[in-house]
């Protein structure tokens, strides 16, 4: 091919930037409308209780095996990696407090949210994306069912309720992993370990973790549904929707983590 004709298709860099910025604000505006629609429809009857319960089962129960494994390993590994540093100062008795703070404040919410973004978010993106592409969403609409309410509202509610529960569960499993490690190395008893764990936590810690988990859950649901519900036509669109759901949700989770921690630390 003549290199000159090829070049004509590449717009100058300035245009590329302005177009992606336009695209960016366009997307932000659309997501904003999507979220507004959620808040409008979530309070209007009919309520899709059956579908909400079904989605809670899909999000919560089906994530348990993966979450259990990751949570447990996180607890064990984090404890084993922290031990040498504390041992340098002869402070291994501080291990349970350190672990408790690290797991409850940061690790459990982040690990759970990232895993859920990967598993649940991509699943929602792909599922709704393929329903969109094969006109199943249109089919719902013409049979006089509101697909936004049936598919989207129920999924967002499910992640918003279930992610905090999963985070609690992850924290528990991770602490059990940490306990096993501490118990076999420092012979700390179960009662001793958990009394140290709870002593190091404040109400603010528990509140901020619950709040953060709820925000993470809402984010995963909104992003997964948005990407799927607005996926482009064709099988390629489904893959893109699933992929975009994971990438965008993970990115937002990190941003939210930074912002929420900054706010909470201002109250400490």
């Amino acid at each position, binding site marked *: 091919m003549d290199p000159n004709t090829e070049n004509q298709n590449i717009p100058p860099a300035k245009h590329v930037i302005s177009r992606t910025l336009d695209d960016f604000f366009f997307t932000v505006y659309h997501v904003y409308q999507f979220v507004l629609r959620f808040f409008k429809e979530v309070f209007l009857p009919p309520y899709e209780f059956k579908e909400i319960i079904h989605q809670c089962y899909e999000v919560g129960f089906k994530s348990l095996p993966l979450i259990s494994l990751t949570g447990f390993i996180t607890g064990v590994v984090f404890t084993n990696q922290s031990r040498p540093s504390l041992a340098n100062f002869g402070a291994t008795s501080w291990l349970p407090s350190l672990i408790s703070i690290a797991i409850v404040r940061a690790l459990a919410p982040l690990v759970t949210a990232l895993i859920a973004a990967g598993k649940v978010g991509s699943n929602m993106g792909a599922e709704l994306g393929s329903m969109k592409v*094969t006109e*199943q969403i249109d*089919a719902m*609409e*013409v*049979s*006089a069912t509101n697909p936004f309410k049936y598919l989207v509202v129920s999924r967002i509610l499910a992640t918003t309720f279930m992610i905090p529960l999963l985070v609690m569960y992850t924290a528990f499993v991770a602490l059990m992993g940490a306990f096993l490690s501490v118990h076999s190395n420092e012979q700390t008893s179960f009662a001793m370990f958990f009394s140290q764990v709870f002593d190091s936590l404040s109400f603010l810690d528990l509140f901020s973790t619950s709040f953060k988990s709820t925000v993470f859950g809402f984010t995963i649901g909104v992003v997964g549904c948005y990407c799927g519900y607005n996926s482009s036509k064709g099988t390629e669109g489904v893959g893109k929707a699933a992929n975009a759901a994971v990438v965008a949700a993970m990115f937002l989770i990190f941003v939210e983590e930074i912002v929420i921690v900054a706010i909470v630390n201002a109250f400490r």
Partner: protein
Amino acid sequence: MLKTKKAIDKNNSVISIRGLQKAFGDLHILRGVDLDVYQGENLVVLGRSGTGKSVLIKIISGLLLPDEGQVNVLGEEVALLKSRELMALRLKVGFSFQNSALYDSMTVRQNLEFPLVRNSRNLKRSQINDEVESVLDAVGLSQTIEQMPSELSGGQRKRIGIARTLILRPEIMLYDEPTAGLDPITCIEINSLINEVQEKYKTTSIIITHDLTCAKETGDRIAMLLDGQFAIQGTFDEVFASDDARVQSFYNYNFTQ
């Protein structure tokens, strides 16, 4: 089954479209469509792919909004309806999608009861089962009731798709390419199913197709969508007696391929 052509009562129009325009960006798809569909008839809309046939019936069922013009369905102006009123209208308008659009996470039974359970919430379990069995019987697929859509053939999926819209007893049926992608024998079966539905459920139908056999078998009247307008309407023979070059090339293409 050979079709007995309906006598058309031209005073009783169920769908009435005037000056309908629709564009996507710079692409002007529908450019002033005028169309009447009369009570009880099967109207076939013919046109090459990409001419906006699907867009037209999506506008009729309120899935897309027109840019300009009036679309009146069963006495209601579709574009002006509130969402509740649109839902009520949609109960009377069945839509059979080109790729069937069966819910692939549900069994055939669940697919069929979905519209029913959601729109008449106080039906008894036995009534729902009766309805499901009756429409499934009407499309001749009683044995598939517990199967998943992925286990069905293309023709079976089409039939289930049609059954799912019949379960709400629509007054109007919109078929989007009912025979596309099917083998000739299955096409014949689908054509006679469309005629049976017209007889049994007393529906008024729009059948979109580019398959002339299907048009001939099912249509009481044919309308050809050419360059965004219905230039030519009439019976099959009337339409193809036209010496418009576009009509002739369409005819030749279909019967010489």
